[in-house]
């Protein structure tokens, strides 16, 4: 049933985008009224980001007189947006991340590149150049205004490590020894969602152990793991860790939520988790947690443990309807980049992609304190796959990387499974 749905949507969206490209614009839904803006986002009322957004929007309306209608979506935002685009009834502005289908939106005309807006609108120095580059596609379109980012460290529960007679591992050999010690003390080692996006990212993090940044990006963009000796060394390292019992039992079937629950409940001592989990950590796990990275491999590229970070969690995207309300949109975007508004976001524990200084000292969370301080100096930053792995490869790759977490599959089988996904996507 799900496949039918996906196929139906794929046809619909392809048709829609083709028609959109051919037409000169349809009716406007957000459109018409210059004193109102329709914002579509995955920052729902159920999370802290959504609450912060609503607080900021209230202030914006009070200040500008412009009303903002917020449309909430789940993970299906891109599909719903593309369908409404077909009807010319899309929202004026989107607040959503840069991944999967969104990677090609500027190229295929689903959104308006913001290159000129970046120059003309008064955003000060809020957006760092690195973030702009992360949001720029291979045709030099800046897809949207970078807004929030993330860090994605490895979490180590020092209480559990101490009980097992070990400490935070800094090298691969130490990681294997730590995993054995943890297992002997009845605690799971590394918990990750081997069956979904989180496990895919950790696989790709280990994959790049012996590649430099350029080669990593090339492999992420084009595949060809089997032909790249350095990538194969990464895959072999992965299988070596897997077979040494570094991951918790049944990791190939876990989702990100299940893996997070294992760590948060003390059933696993190590968990790679992103900044979205910072505010979910409760005592005593929060105080016992030391944030770090994936340990250093002998002969590898990284000299320090490595973790992910990125500037692509969410950004402001201008839609064809939004282009017709440029003046109102300018006010909204400029407001969202004001230091006081960015502080509202930071207060909600959101990691910003902006360079504006924020005060997080009053946030009572030992995890956030580490994330904003010691973590930044203690790790190297790995290449985040989202901006490089093509949209039509990313999702199908989850199944291929699930193969990697399953014992009995050797490096050749794994690289072939991943390369097949790239080949299928053409």
């Amino acid at each position, binding site marked *: *049933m799900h496949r*039918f*749905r996906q*196929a*139906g*949507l794929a*046809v*619909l969206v392809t*048709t*829609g985008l083709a028609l959109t490209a051919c037409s000169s614009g349809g009716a406007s*839904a957000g459109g018409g009224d210059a004193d109102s803006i329709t914002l*579509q986002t*995955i920052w*729902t*009322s*159920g*999370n*802290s*980001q959504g609450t912060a957004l609503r607080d900021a929007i209230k202030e914006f309306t009070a200040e500008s007189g412009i009303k903002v*209608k*917020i*449309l*909430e*979506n*789940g*993970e*299906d935002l891109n*599909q*719903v947006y593309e*369908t*409404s685009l*077909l*009807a010319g*009834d899309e929202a004026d502005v989107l607040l959503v991340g840069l991944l999967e289908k969104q990677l090609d939106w500027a190229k295929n005309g689903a959104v308006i590149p913001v290159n000129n807006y970046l120059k003309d609108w008064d955003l000060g120095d809020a957006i760092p150049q690195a973030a702009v580059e992360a949001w720029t596609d291979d045709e030099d379109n800046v897809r949207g205004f970078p807004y929030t980012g993330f860090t994605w460290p490895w979490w180590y529960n020092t209480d559990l490590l101490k009980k097992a007679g070990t400490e935070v591992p800094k090298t691969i050999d130490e990681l294997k020894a730590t995993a054995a010690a943890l297992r002997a003390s009845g605690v799971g080692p590394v918990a990750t969602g081997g069956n979904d*996006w989180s496990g895919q990212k950790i696989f790709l993090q280990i994959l790049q152990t012996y590649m430099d940044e350029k080669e990593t990006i090339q492999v992420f963009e084009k595949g060809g793991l089997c032909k790249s000796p350095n990538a194969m060394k990464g895959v072999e390292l992965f299988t070596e860790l897997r077979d040494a019992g570094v991951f918790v039992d049944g990791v190939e079937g876990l989702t*990100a*939520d*299940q893996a997070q*629950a*294992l760590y*948060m*409940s003390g*059933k696993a001592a190590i968990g790679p988790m*992103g900044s*979205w*989990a910072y505010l979910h950590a409760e005592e005593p796990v929060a105080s016992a947690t030391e944030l770090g990275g994936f340990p250093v491999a002998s002969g590898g590229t990284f000299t320090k443990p490595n973790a992910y970070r990125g500037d692509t969690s969410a950004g402001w995207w201008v839609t064809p309807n939004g282009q017709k309300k440029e003046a109102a949109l300018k006010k909204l975007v400029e407001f969202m980049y004001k230091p006081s508004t960015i502080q509202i976001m930071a207060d909600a524990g959101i990691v910003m992609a902006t360079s504006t200084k924020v005060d997080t000292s009053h946030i009572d969370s030992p995890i956030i304190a580490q994330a904003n301080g010691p973590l930044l100096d203690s790790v190297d930053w790995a290449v985040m796959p989202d901006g490089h792995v093509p949209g039509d490869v990313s999702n199908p790759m989850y199944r291929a990387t699930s193969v990697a977490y399953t014992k009995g599959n050797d490096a050749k089988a794994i690289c072939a499974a991943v390369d097949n996904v790239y080949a299928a996507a053409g």
Partner: protein
Amino acid sequence: MTTTASPLNTRAQAAPVRASSSRGSRGISAFLTYLSHGAIWLYVLLLLVPIYYLVISAFKTNTAILNEPFNPFAGLVLDNFGKAWEQATLGPALLNQAYLTVGASVLTLLLAIPASYALARSKGKLGGIVERIFQVGFLVPAFAALVPTVMLAISMNLFHTREFLILFLPAGAMPLSVILLTQAMRTVPAELEESAVLDGASQMRVLWAVFLPVTMPTTITVIILNFLGFWNEYFFSLVIIGPDPALRTAQVALPTLSMTNAAQYGVLAAGIVITLIPVYIVYAIFAEKMEGAVLAGALKG
């Protein structure tokens, strides 16, 4: 001297054998009864497990749901229902869902009852062909109609409206509704119709006063089946009605309660429980009549 076995003697000899055989068959029968009861209870338990899991999850934290899924006492919280109601604005969403469901159900009945009446009374080839066309409707998967449906909604200027789905959903429900009602109406005795016609009843009067009352149990079955289908409809509601809080249905609102990086399974479970309540009420009201329809069908068979 020859002895002849009298019937009395034979019966007397056979009696212990029969008693023994009877005790044996009673034992087997009792065993089978226990076995079938056990199987039924097992089946009931299997049906109850997901409901139990859903209900207890509505009162638990995320970590407890994931780590101790069947423990009803782990990680108890009471505010999931309030959060679900508020965060997904379930009040308007349920009203939208009800509007859509009732509208589509009424329209389906308005179309299916006269169509079935005509097909049931038809004796020509054309009626048979039309009935076959309705049966072919089963072969068209709803998702196959997605692209033309969206195009149609746009061309009718009904995209992002609930009214389009009220018009569209009956199309998918018509085949089953018409086939069930046609079969039921064929069982109405011709004498009843003839006497009504002799009394001067019009076609509409015959349908209303003769056919509908006799086929009411089947009609109720159709109402319940359509209600369940329309109430639980998600995909077309998501794509065509969209996420506007003023228009979206409860099924579209629910997924916003649990996102990839901010899962709230307890709140989501509470939201699902809330949306199940109307379904349960409708089923409770009509269940007896539906069982009557099933029973009536069995007796006629």
